[in-house]
């Protein structure tokens, strides 16, 4: 192509990009979106996590604006404070009764002042209204929350939700209407950055993020975690810690004139228990589960099948708009059931349309259970529905324990956790890059253990109050117990935990002699107490401790000078969310940690067939409200293929030599990716590819590593290495099933 023409072409491209409407993010009515980005900084101290989040707003339009943004917090998070920064003023919001807060906000808007209101919509959703943000003005909303995390056998998973994925059903079921209904904009891009200090931790190798590429470095009093590059508000930030520090003392803090005590004893694990199970598995196959999510769900499901023994029973049901019983009922988990089920599961797709979860759950609960057995339900879902309360209520009445496996880059945590809490079950999370096997190992430990209940809690002195205690406890769990005292308690507390067969275990924990500073503990305790109170009492406590609850909101008003007051009614802009990464199969997140969603208008409707398959799952017998995004099956259009990874001759040789040395020393060959990466020089890209192979071929890590070693053996230069060594490498895969796909994978994806 002649040079001149290329230059012209470039100019034209540049011009047309500038003219694209995506250059400035706008809502559907053409107003510019004022959210500029979000930054979070936080600290994990043992099991207490505190985070400060800054939402930056700027009004680039010519008009006076009101921004309304509904955003997620973890279900157990307690919102402690909200600041409004505008001009050079920084003002703290106060918590008052919900109606009062809303009236104060409206009066400020009417009077032409700037105001911010943060309301708790329930189930982990909060709405910010930021009104009278003048043309060209910028403001920062800074909020801070605290959360008590659980460690399970020392494993801790910390999640910072950043996005609400499109949900199925009627937003009013979640208390949302008008501008508070979270919308989605496929062109939206909000930068997100986070920095965390992990107090008291030293082993950087025990800290990892399955969601983002992070740098873990020694910090002031532990480890510091930061993003390698700025992310986007399109997925939860997840951090996993293997050796979480569990406090050896009950924490003690001042609470007004009295004291508050937080004891977090750990229930020890007995020898492995092997209770036979009756599992009713319910798999969400709605459109939103497409792509990465259904792949992760299948990994989880195959892993479940792997953990069953012939003395167990199982049923499998999948649902979307309709319910499909895959097995006829609870069947023995023997070879006759499992072998065909394994192949059925591999064929499953997210092709059942909407998410009629309540009906599906009811039909699973109704499946006949043999007389002397207690059946448990495993629900595998992204939880993207509005009617959390309805589903949780059905589960709560059911006499079944529910174990929720929440799938995806931004699952509805509130649903999964509430189901577990209400039924004495459990919840686990499987993101696109998470190890489903490890998750299932944890879940099965819980399932197979004999149910335990919390007995008497003996505090050193009689408490004035205690916060509600957990319904069910499992070996390895951390229990959080909170109590208030007038006089300073001193000594030891004793917790009795009963197993069903009449045995009891006593846990003892001394009360710390040093006081924990600050007001976080008493306020966390107040939030727990509020959860069991109603109406006026709950409101009173929330105001006293300055908390945003379903009864109270935060409000702050920045008075403007007379000449500066807003004159016109603000244009109300509902700030849309980015499309959650990988939602409905919109793009894959596996391997690629910072991909932005493909640009495409969400309101587009796709009909017709491609290869005889419907692109649009036409809603069957659904009302207009149900015909939501959830019915779009976009996976066929958007699924990315992972790239071929280069593996140079020198790199291969270095790895082969290291393996050869190990072989000569009679060291065992690596059996999983961890062992492979720790002891041997494997390029990062290759490691990621191998990780991907576990997802794509639905294979165990050990099999992937074996196939990889075999591939290396086949491609090694025979003159350089011991023939026994090469034979050993090549022989890694013989005689084992399921290697064909892996061999093909290695052949296609590893470039020499």
């Amino acid at each position: 192509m002649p040079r001149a023409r290329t230059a012209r072409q470039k100019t034209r491209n540049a011009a047309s990009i500038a003219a694209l409407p995506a250059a400035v993010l706008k809502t559907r009515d053409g107003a510019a979106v004022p959210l500029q980005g979000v930054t979070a900084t936080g600290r994990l101290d043992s099991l207490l996590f505190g985070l400060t989040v800054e939402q930056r707003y700027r009004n680039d339009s010519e008009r006076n604006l009101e921004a309304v943004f509904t955003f997620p917090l973890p279900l157990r998070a307690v919102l402690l404070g909200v600041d409004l920064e505008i001009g050079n003023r920084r003002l703290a919001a106060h918590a008052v009764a919900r109606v009062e807060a809303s009236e104060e906000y409206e009066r400020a808007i009417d009077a032409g002042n700037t105001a911010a209101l943060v309301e708790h919509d329930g189930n982990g959703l909060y709405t910010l209204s930021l009104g009278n943000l003048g043309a060209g003005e910028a403001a920062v909303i800074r909020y801070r929350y605290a959360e008590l995390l659980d460690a399970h056998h020392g494993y801790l998973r910390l999640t910072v939700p950043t996005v609400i994925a499109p949900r199925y059903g009627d937003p009013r079921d979640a208390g949302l209407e008008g501008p508070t209904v979270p919308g989605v904009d496929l062109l939206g891009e909000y930068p997100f950055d986070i920095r965390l200090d992990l107090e008291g931790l030293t082993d950087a190798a025990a800290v990892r993020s399955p969601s983002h590429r992070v740098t873990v470095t020694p910090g002031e009093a532990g480890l510091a975690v930061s993003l390698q590059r700025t992310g986007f508000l399109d997925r939860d930030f997840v951090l996993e810690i293997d050796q979480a520090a569990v406090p050896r003392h009950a924490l003690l803090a001042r609470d007004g004139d009295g004291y508050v005590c937080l004891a977090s004893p750990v229930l020890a694990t007995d020898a492995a228990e092997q209770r036979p199970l009756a599992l009713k598995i319910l798999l969400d196959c709605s459109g939103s589960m497409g792509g990465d999510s259904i792949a992760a769900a299948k990994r989880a499901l195959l892993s479940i099948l792997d953990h069953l023994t012939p003395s167990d029973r199982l049923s499998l049901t999948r649902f979307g708009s309709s319910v499909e019983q895959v097995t006829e009922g609870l069947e023995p988990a023997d070879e006759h059931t499992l072998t065909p089920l394994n192949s059925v599961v591999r064929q499953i797709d997210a092709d059942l349309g909407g998410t009629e979860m309540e009906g599906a759950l009811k039909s699973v609960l109704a499946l006949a259970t043999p007389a002397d057995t207690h059946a448990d339900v495993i629900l595998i879902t992204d939880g993207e529905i509005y009617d959390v309360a309805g589903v949780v209520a059905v589960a709560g009445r059911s006499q079944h324990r529910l174990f929720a496996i929440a799938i995806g880059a931004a699952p509805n945590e509130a649903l999964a956790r509430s189901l577990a809490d209400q039924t004495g079950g459990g919840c686990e999370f499987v993101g696109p890059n998470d190890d489903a096997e490890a998750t299932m190992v944890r879940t099965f430990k819980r399932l197979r253990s004999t149910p335990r209940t919390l007995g008497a809690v003996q505090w050193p002195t009689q408490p004035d109050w205690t916060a509600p205690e957990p319904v069910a406890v499992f070996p390895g769990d951390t229990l959080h117990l909170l109590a208030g005292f007038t006089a300073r308690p001193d000594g030891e507390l004793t917790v009795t935990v009963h197993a069903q067969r009449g045995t009891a275990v006593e846990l003892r924990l001394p009360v710390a002699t040093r006081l924990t500073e600050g007001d976080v503990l008493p306020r966390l305790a107040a939030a727990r107490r509020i959860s069991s109170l109603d109406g006026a009492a709950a409101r009173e406590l929330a105001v006293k401790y300055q908390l945003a609850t379903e009864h109270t909101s935060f409000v702050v008003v920045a008075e403007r000078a007379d000449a500066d007051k807003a004159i016109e009614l603000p244009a109300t802009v509902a700030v849309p969310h980015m499309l959650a990464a990988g939602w409905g199969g919109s793009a894959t997140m596996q391997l690629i940690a910072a991909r932005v969603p493909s640009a495409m208008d969400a309101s587009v409707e796709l009909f017709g067939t491609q290869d005889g398959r419907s692109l649009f799952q036409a809603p069957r017998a659904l009302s207009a409200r149900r015909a939501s995004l959830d019915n779009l099956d976009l996976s066929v259009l958007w699924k990315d293929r992972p790239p071929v990874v280069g593996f140079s001759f020198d790199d291969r040789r270095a790895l082969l030599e290291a393996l050869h040395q190990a072989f000569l020393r009679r060291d065992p060959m690596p059996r999983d990716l961890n062992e492979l990466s720790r002891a041997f020089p494997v390029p990062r890209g290759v490691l990621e590819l191998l990780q991907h192979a576990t997802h794509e071929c639905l294979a165990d890590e050990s099999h992937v590593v074996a196939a990889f070693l075999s591939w290396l053996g086949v491609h090694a230069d025979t003159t350089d290495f011991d023939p026994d060594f090469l034979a050993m490498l090549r022989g890694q895969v013989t005689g084992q099933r399921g290697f064909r796909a892996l061999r093909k994978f290695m052949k296609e994806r590893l470039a020499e």
Partner: protein
Amino acid sequence: MDPTTPDRRYSADELATLANVPRRTLRYYIQLGLVDRPIGETRAAHYTWHHLHRLLEIRRLTEQGFSLERAQELLSGQAEAPAAAAAPRAGSIAVQSHIHLGPGVELVIEPERAGLSPTQLRRLAREALAAYARIADATED
């Protein structure tokens, strides 16, 4: 005075209370063009029976499960029978063109619904192809 008298004036507060919608939602509807702006300047602005009627209509439709976009279409008479456009009827046939942009990437056009002229369609296809080529060639950041 009867609050539904045609020439009665309402403040934003009264209107929101009568229609049982938050005032923020009223402002949102105005911004979306679902409800007309109030009459008069800010401090003296008022609403009429027509505003109230409109708000109640919107509430009725959203309670029946219609989205705000759909409510807007219905109220402005752009759409006819309510349920007709929500989903294609079983057995209905749509003829579509699939324009292949690259491996696994297609642009699907349903000419009748799209309402594009042949020139517009060619332009769309040309620009989509160019966009795809540019994006597919660019390296990931």
